[in-house]
């Protein structure tokens, strides 16, 4: 099941941060960032928190539930 994420949007809000730079800062591979942005992989709560801190957004702003989209 695909998930809606706004990681890419917040990455661009942060000075067009590259996937590689984000991956380096949250200590994962670039492919993992790609998978998260595409909605192919749901990160653990710990990685989600690290992402939210680096991108300056709340976890629920990065990862949206279906009901939030309607």
């Amino acid at each position, binding site marked *: 099941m695909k998930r809606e994420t706004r990681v890419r949007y917040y990455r661009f809000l942060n000075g067009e941060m590259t996937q590689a730079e984000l991956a380096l800062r949250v*200590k*994962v591979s670039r*492919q*993992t960032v790609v998978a998260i942005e595409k909605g192919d992989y749901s*990160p*653990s709560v710990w990685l989600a928190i690290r992402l939210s801190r680096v991108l300056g957004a709340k976890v629920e702003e990065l990862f949206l539930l279906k009901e939030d989209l309607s």
Partner: protein
Amino acid sequence: MKTGVLNIVRLIWILIVLFLAAVWRVEALILIFGLVFFGPLLRETGICHDVDERQQSLHWKAGYYGFMSLMIVLFAVFVWNLLIVHKELKPEWWLLLIVPLIVRSGFYSWKGTGLRRLGLGLGFTFGGIWTVFTLLSHGFSTESLIESAVGFAILFPTAASIRWPRIGGLFLFLAGIGFAFMLIHAWDRMNGIFQIILMWCILPLPPIIAGISLFRYGANWREEDGKKIT
């Protein structure tokens, strides 16, 4: 330890294998299979941190599919040999079937449902298999009753563990130790190393592990609830 170090370890292993193949015998190349152990062993023991959480979950998923593939192949081999061409299989084939099944179901019971389920599962499964196997082999005779004592020696303490886990666990453990002594005495009658390993896997180890699990469960339960259960 990062990927670079792990790759160096792998490279050293490859060089050792090539050296052995060159100076000893070419069949030593089979040792190249050892490469599959380094990554999982070093990761699971926490020594190596070369993958992130997504890659690790992919490794686990790949391992699961690998396990299922192995089981399908083994299923075909066992059905073909035992049911179609009526051919006995060597102990190593039974080892290939039993060890992954025990590890998989044992790990899931332990982590997923706790020590009690692990102990009861092992005890009832192996006790039941031993009892049914001996009864089906010899029918309902005095001989089968004597031989099925092995199964009952596992089944009764397991059943007792439902109410008294520490006592049942202790008796299961003692039964396992007894079986271990039996096997040590029968060492010279065993047909090769694989039969020895197989017999240890199906006779003393299950009741020993079940006994320890149930005893530990019983000890923890008493401390947590403050109830006297023995």
